[in-house]
C-alpha cells in the first residue's frame, strides 16, 4: 500500500463493520428491552430492585466482586420429562399408551407412587403424541421442561441466564471467572440476612476451607447500647468482639446484602423455557428481585 488513505480505509472498513455488529446491533436488539411476561404464568419479569438493593449493586461493583463471582448460569441442554399425574378413567388404555414408549412401564404397578416421570424425550413436540394418547384415556400428564448442565445441577440456577435477567442492572456484571460460586440466584439459595452478614465478615467460619477474603471493613465494632443490636453478628472464638462490644454491619454491608438477596434469575421465559417445580408455584414470584412483601 503506497498511500495512507488505503491504510485508513482498511482500518475504517474493518472497525466500522465490527462496530455495527457488536455495538450497534446489540443496542438495537437488546438495549431497549423492557419488562416481559413469564411463560406460561404470565407474570411481569423482571421487577426493579428495591432502592437499598440498588445501592448494594454499587457496593458490589466498587468492591470488584465480579472478578471472582460470575452472574451468569450456563446451560448445556434441555430435557423434557413426561410426568404421569393420574391414571385416568381408562387405566388399561393409558397403560398401553405408556407401553408404546416404555414397555417396562406397561404394567399396573406404574400407577403406584404417582406423580412419576414415565419418560424423557427430546423435545415437547416429541412428548405430544404420548400426552395426547394418555389424555384421551382420561389420564393426566404433565410435561416438565428441565434445563441441564453442570451449573444447573450445582443448583446455581434453574435455567441459563438471558438478556432479560439484566434489564434493570447497571453496571451489568456477568463476570468471566469463578474463583467463587456463581451468584445469579444467590438470593434464592442463601436467603438469610444474618448468614450473609456473617459470611461476609468471616467466610471461613460459614464455609470451611473457603478461599474468599473476609470483608471485615464493611462492619464496625461498637459498644453495646442499652439493647444489643438485632443485627449484631454472632461470633465465637477469636473473632468474637471484646465483652461489652458488638460487631454490626455498616450501611455498605446492609446494601450489599440487600443486593445479594435480590439476585434471583429463574423465571421461565420464552428464550429460556423451563417449568418451575410445582412446589415453587405459589407465593414467591420468580423475579429478578426480592419476593414482594
Amino acid at each position, binding site marked *: 500500500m503506497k498511500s495512507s488513505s488505503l491504510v485508513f480505509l482498511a482500518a475504517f472498513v474493518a472497525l466500522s463493520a465490527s462496530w455495527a455488529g457488536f455495538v450497534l*446491533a446489540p443496542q438495537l*436488539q*437488546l438495549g431497549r428491552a423492557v419488562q416481559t411476561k413469564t*411463560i*406460561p*404464568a*404470565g*407474570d*411481569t419479569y423482571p421487577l426493579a430492585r428495591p432502592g437499598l438493593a440498588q445501592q448494594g449493586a454499587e457496593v458490589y461493583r466498587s468492591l470488584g466482586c465480579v472478578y471472582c463471582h460470575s452472574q451468569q448460569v450456563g*446451560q*448445556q*441442554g*434441555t430435557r*423434557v420429562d413426561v410426568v404421569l*399425574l393420574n391414571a385416568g*378413567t381408562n387405566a388399561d388404555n393409558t397403560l398401553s399408551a405408556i407401553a408404546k414408549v416404555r414397555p417396562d412401564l406397561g404394567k399396573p404397578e406404574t400407577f403406584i407412587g404417582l406423580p412419576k416421570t414415565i419418560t424423557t424425550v*427430546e*423435545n*415437547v*413436540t416429541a*412428548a*405430544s403424541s404420548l*400426552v395426547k394418547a394418555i*389424555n384421551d384415556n*382420561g389420564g*393426566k*400428564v*404433565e*410435561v416438565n*421442561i428441565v434445563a441441564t*448442565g453442570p451449573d444447573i445441577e450445582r443448583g446455581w440456577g434453574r435455567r*441459563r441466564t*438471558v*438478556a432479560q435477567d439484566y434489564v434493570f442492572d447497571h453496571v451489568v456484571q456477568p463476570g468471566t471467572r469463578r474463583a467463587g460460586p456463581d451468584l445469579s440466584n444467590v438470593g434464592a439459595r442463601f436467603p438469610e440476612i444474618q448468614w450473609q452478614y456473617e459470611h461476609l465478615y468471616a467466610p471461613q467460619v460459614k464455609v470451611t476451607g473457603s478461599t474468599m477474603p473476609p470483608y471485615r471493613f464493611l462492619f464496625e465494632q461498637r459498644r453495646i447500647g442499652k439493647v444489643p443490636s438485632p443485627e449484631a453478628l454472632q461470633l465465637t472464638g477469636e473473632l468474637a468482639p471484646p465483652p461489652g462490644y458488638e460487631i454490626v454491619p455498616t450501611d455498605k454491608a446492609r446494601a450489599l446484602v440487600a443486593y445479594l438477596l435480590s439476585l434471583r434469575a429463574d423465571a*421461565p421465559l*420464552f*428464550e*429460556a*423455557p423451563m*417449568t418451575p417445580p*410445582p412446589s415453587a*408455584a*405459589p407465593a414467591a414470584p420468580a423475579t429478578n428481585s426480592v419476593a414482594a412483601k
Partner: protein
Amino acid sequence: MNPDLKKTSSSSSAETEPTALMTPMPVWPFGLMLALLFLGAWYFDLYGGWFKPQVYSPYTSLAHLEQFQPPKGGIDPLRGRKLYLDNCAVCHQEAGTGNPANGCPPLVDSEWVKSPSVTRLVMIISKGMSGPVTVNGKVWNTGVMLAVGDSLPGDEAEKSDKIAAIADYVRYQFGKVEGETTAAQVQAIRATIQDRTANFTEAELLKVEP
C-alpha cells in the same frame, strides 16, 4: 554482531531502514483462510441462531427453541393446574373434593362444572359466589367465595386468559368435559358483568343458560 549495544548517535546516521521484498504472495494463507471461513460459516449456521435475539445457546435456532416451549392450546395441563393450585385449591382442594369444614362445595362431578357452557363457571370465578348452593343434590351453605378472577394479576386480557385456563382445567379435571375456552370468550362474558361488585347467588346463576 549486535548493533544495538554499541550504537552512538554518530554511527546511527549510517543506518539504513529495512526494506520489504516484493516476492509474490504464497497461496496457502488464502487457502487456509477460505477453509476456516467455510468451517466458520458452517459452524455459525449450525449454532448461531441467525441473529435472532431470542436464541441463546444451547438452542440453535428459533425452531429449536420453540420445541421446548411449554405446550400451548388445547387443554394445557400445566398452566391451568398451576393457576388452580395457586388460586382455588386452598378451599376446593387439589383433588377438587371441596371442604365440608368451611362449606366449600366439591368440584368433582359437580353439575356446575359439567355444565355444557362455560358461562356460569366464568361468572363464578370472576365475581365469586355467596349463599347456599346445591351440588350433586346436597345443599352446601357456602359462606363466601371471593371474586378470585377479578383479583388475578394483570390487565383485563390477562385476567381473561387466566380464567380461561382455570375453567378449562376445572372442567377437564373434575367434570371430564373437554373444551378449549379462549380468552376472547371469557372477555365477552366478563364484559356483561363488568360493573358488578357483589357476589353471585345461586338463584341469579340459574337464570343463565347452562
